[in-house]
């Protein structure tokens, strides 16, 4: 009798442990723990860690997108792993190793498809967001060494499209997945040398490639793809010695304030300011190091910038009106990523070497709270679910 009770108790406990949180997810998010292959699920209102999900493989370069119901996150790992996690239940739902070495992914406009871009083998694979079954395999152009070009800068675009760039062969491709069984590709082969990342404007109209192999950026108007790519800011960096780049900048997100956009300058200690009407340079802000992320507070009033090694112990805040650095924060070595809460009153910053997340009040620009995390890198809040390109 006693033994039965114990068994029943154990079963009951098992059931409660398998239980999931009953709450909305709008103030939740995940933090990548890059060295341990795990993800923390956090609450941005309570400043709390809710759970840790393990077994996601090599997350040394990882990013994530959300299902449109903001319950599931899809995490893209360096080892080609694509993992679907349930943030309410704090558990891994499914994991597939879809490539040898991947760099990022995107979710389609309607939320039904997940696309992953791969370094090895080059190309993009598209999966069902429901069960991660393969829907389409799009191999990249082969390089002269016979390998598929690395694909980078993959984003979603309106009309069930994905846009990405081919690093080795200097191309930009639009992948139309309206009819999943019949993917349609539109290729632009004149992107420029070594496009290293791409971004799309929040309205989903303009796609821009950053170029490592030459000055300037390549712009594609998705309302008028027939007009092709054209080069913008092609004078920047001309005649100036480019500094060695110890970490490639990221163009994830689009730092826009009014009609100005802010971009990291490759190989320069500068943030570039671009007029989004004319696509001409409208200023440069000298900063502490080579910028990695330039992130606009959701209201566009401030830009928070972090830097490449060996200056990755600092964050600077730029006033978008005066284009001046208004604050320099010594966050600590290995400051890797920043994420604003949906309406921007706080920013969460991951500091790898301190094994912590620092939460700052963006109005006073002061530290509010620290949370423990193992070698944290990317921070992704659920409001990304409803933003094109994120």
């Amino acid at each position, binding site marked *: 009798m006693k033994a039965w009770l114990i068994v029943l108790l154990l079963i009951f406990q098992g059931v*409660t442990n398998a239980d999931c949180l009953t709450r909305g997810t709008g103030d939740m998010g995940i933090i990548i723990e890059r*060295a341990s292959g795990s993800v923390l699920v956090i609450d941005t209102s309570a400043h709390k860690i809710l*759970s840790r999900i393990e077994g996601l493989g090599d997350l040394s*370069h990882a990013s994530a997108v959300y299902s449109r119901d903001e319950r599931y996150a899809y995490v893209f790992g360096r*080892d080609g792993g694509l993992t679907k996690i349930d943030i309410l239940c704090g558990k891994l739902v499914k994991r597939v190793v879809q490539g040898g070495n991947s760099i990022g992914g995107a979710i389609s406009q309607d939320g039904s498809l997940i696309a992953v871009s791969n370094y090895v083998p080059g190309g993009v694979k598209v999966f069902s967001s429901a069960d991660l079954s393969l829907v389409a395999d799009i191999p990249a152009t082969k390089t002269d060494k016979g390998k598929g070009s690395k694909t980078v800068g993959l984003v979603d675009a309106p009309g069930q499209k994905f846009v990405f760039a081919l690093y080795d062969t200097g191309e930009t491709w639009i992948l139309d997945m309206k009819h999943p069984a019949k993917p349609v590709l539109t290729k632009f082969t004149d992107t420029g040398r070594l496009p290293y990342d791409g971004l799309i404007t929040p309205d989903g109209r303009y796609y821009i490639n950053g170029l490592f192999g030459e000055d300037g950026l390549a712009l594609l108007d998705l309302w008028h793809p027939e007009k092709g790519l054209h080069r913008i800011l092609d004078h920047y960096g001309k005649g100036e010695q480019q500094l060695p780049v110890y970490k490639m900048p990221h163009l994830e997100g689009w730092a826009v304030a009014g009609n100005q956009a802010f971009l990291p300058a490759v190989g320069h200690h500068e943030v570039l300011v671009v007029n989004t009407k004319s696509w001409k340079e409208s200023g440069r802000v000298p900063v502490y190091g080579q910028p990695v992320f330039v992130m606009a507070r959701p209201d566009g009033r401030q830009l928070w910038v972090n830097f490449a090694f060996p200056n990755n112990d600092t964050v600077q805040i730029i006033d978008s009106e005066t284009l001046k650095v208004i604050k320099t924060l010594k966050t600590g070595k290995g400051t890797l990523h920043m994420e604003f809460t949906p309406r921007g009153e706080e920013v969460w910053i991951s500091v790898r070497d301190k094994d912590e997340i620092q939460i700052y009040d963006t109005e006073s620009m002061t530290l509010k709270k620290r949370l423990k995390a193992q070698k944290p890198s990317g921070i992704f809040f659920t409001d990304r679910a409803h933003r094109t390109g994120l």
Partner: protein
Amino acid sequence: MLPAHAVGTLKPEFLNLSLGMIRVGLTILMASIFASCHTASAHAELVSDRQAELLYLLKHDCGSCHGMRLEGGLGPALTSSRLQPQSVETLAMTILQGRPGTPMPPWHPFMSEEEAKWLASQLKKGITP
């Protein structure tokens, strides 16, 4: 209101944290054992702390392009088999001078020639930092 299990899920986290600390401790210990084995060799001037620093740099900063497991990313894999055809000297030169025309930057501002050679020899042996 959080369900009761939310508190429960925190427990493994603390366990992981302490495991993480043990792991870090072990890494340091192993690095120092490794270092002490090495003090007798040609790289005697490299103290164990510096070796640990270099391995950390390899894992996290080189790792941002070559992958934290050195299996490749934007930059090629740095596995033992792939590096076999190259001498320690050539590899050290690549580390120090970078590779013009590619994103590989020169690391000479951050390490000496001896240190680059030590790192190159570790890579050829096939380490997982």
